[in-house]
């Protein structure tokens, strides 16, 4: 079923779309407004000055001030933090996809004693809340001398993303027709060659889905970096936003600008990868 969500939907039953009733639109606009009004408020507020925000919190910029955004981009640690976030998110994504596809491949295409036990063992991880394990996790990373390194964030994130990744990938890899594997075997390709030459290219949509889910989760992560990255030069964007807002409490306009800039990558990313994110979430629940 998970595979179903990442495969292109069958184009049956396409009736031409028509205009809905005015009531439908009124409701839809109201819902959309509630969803994005606060976001718009933050972005627009970044173009105002703090005194004018204090005087009239709900007003519009008059005149539009670009100084706040310029200040954040030139004088804060924004770029360094964006870089750290990117390194950690990309590292996490790469590791999750590689480890996940290897394990899922074995669980999907090999018959061996203990296979279902191993699968259950991984799915058990879905019941282990990352939040509950955070304190012992910190102690362990401290004892391993990993605190204040990218690995302190990447490794646990990979570990906690693996169960979901395997649950999504396994049915997808299992659905690849057996004839392809047999054909590869006749051509003298072993199962590893089959994985590399046929399975990986064929399962790209599923890999993209699990990769994006891991990337977004890592990009937004707060609790783990908060505990294991005390060195401010390693801070990620979520930590940066939080620090900026508690450090410059009176600079409301600056906080709004920083928050908008921190939101921007997520918003852009979401616009481009909406299908994969939504498809992945939908696939995930049905794994």
């Amino acid at each position, binding site marked *: *079923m998970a595979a*179903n969500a990442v495969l292109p939907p069958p184009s049956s039953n396409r009736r031409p*779309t*028509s*205009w*809905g*009733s005015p009531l*439908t*639109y009124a409701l*839809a606009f109201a*819902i*959309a407004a509630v969803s994005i009004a*606060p*976001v718009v*408020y933050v972005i627009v507020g970044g173009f105002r000055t703090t005194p004018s925000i204090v005087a009239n*919190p*709900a007003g519009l910029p008059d005149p539009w001030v670009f100084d706040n955004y310029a200040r954040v981009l030139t004088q804060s640690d924004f770029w360094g933090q964006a870089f750290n976030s990117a390194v950690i998110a990309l590292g996490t994504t790469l*590791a999750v996809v590689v480890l996940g596809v*290897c*394990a899922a491949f074995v669980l*999907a*295409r090999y*018959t*061996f004693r203990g296979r279902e036990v*191993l*699968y*259950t063992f991984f799915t058990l991880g879905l*019941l*282990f809340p990352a939040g*509950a*394990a*955070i*304190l*012992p*996790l910190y102690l362990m990373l401290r004892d391993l001398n990993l605190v204040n390194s990218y690995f302190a964030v990447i490794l*646990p994130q990979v*570990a906690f993303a693996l169960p979901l990744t395997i649950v999504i990938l*396994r049915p997808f890899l*299992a659905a690849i027709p*057996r004839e392809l594997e*047999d054909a590869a*075997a006749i051509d003298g390709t072993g*199962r590893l060659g089959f994985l590399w030459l046929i399975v990986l290219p064929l399962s790209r949509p599923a890999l993209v889905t699990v990769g994006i889910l891991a990337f977004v989760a890592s990009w*937004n992560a*707060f*609790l783990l970096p908060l505990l294991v990255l005390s060195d401010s030069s390693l801070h990620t*964007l*979520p930590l940066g*936003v*939080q620090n900026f807002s508690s450090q410059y409490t009176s600079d409301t306009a600056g906080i*709004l600008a920083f*928050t908008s800039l921190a*939101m921007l990558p*997520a*918003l852009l990313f*979401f616009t481009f990868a909406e299908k994969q*994110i*939504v498809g992945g*979430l939908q696939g995930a*629940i049905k794994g």
Partner: protein
Amino acid sequence: MTSINQTLDPAGGASASPAGLRPARRRPFSRAAENRRKWYEIIGLTTPAIIVYVMFVLVPMGFAVYYSLFRWRGVGPPTEFVGLDNYTLAFQDPIFLDALRNNAIIVVGSLLIQGPIALAVALLLNRRFRGRTVFRLLVFVPYVLAEVTVGIMWKLILTDGGTVDALLRSLGLGSLVQAWLADLNVVIWTLLLVLTWKYVGFAIILLLAGLSNVPHELTEAAEIDGANWWQIQRHITLPLLGPTIRIWMFLSIIGSLQVFDVIWVTSVPAVRSLGASATMATYMVDNGFFARLWGYGNAVAVILFVISFVAALLFQRFLLRRDIEGAITTRRVN
């Protein structure tokens, strides 16, 4: 769902043809050699994932249980064994009990508020009308934003004399203005609203997915038989949506029990330390990490874990069993 599950069943695919019928490889390997090679591949491919998973998911929880039996400031190995004292202490601390109550409010509140809203919005956005893709996209926006940005955003909007207050006053509803994040009796409800705003999009995504699985044939047949839109939703769509709703409830409950980021960022530490806006997770981090009561913090971690685990298992046992075959529950048809 069942039929597709069967065709995609990994076990079914793998065991479809008996091992003896597999086509010959390049050289006729002896059966033993091939078997050995197979096991090398199995071990080589799964070991990295198993190591990372065991080391960073399973081992820490084991350590949490161990540490929780000590009074320990986190320096050197724990030596002062106190048995279950940390657990009894936690359940005697009124702040922890407040945190438990807050988690309960968030669990129940999320289900009762998000459920109906999400259902209504999903049914609306499932209708065919021009531009619905854009509306779907906008509704999901809060869900993809980082919890921290959401927290800071709402903190600014809800600040005393801030936007919400100004809007209420301009609408002549000035009497409704509250100290949203500072009033000890109000703050948890404010946070519940922020959480609702953040996560209702997730419920909508899932329900829309469930709706897209409702066969057109059924609704069209009902339409031909003269059923109106409401009747179709009530008698066809909703019953078929049952599994999706139950899975969302499951994820929502687990998430609500562990909620940390939004609470931590939005609420003022002073208010949190009085228990008004604490949850189990913020209480755990405040006491364990920041106050360096490591033994005690780990005991709270174990309590949080046990509560989530039991809730998950109970839900699984009584409501979810038919919905996610194979995942978590072992009984998979081979």
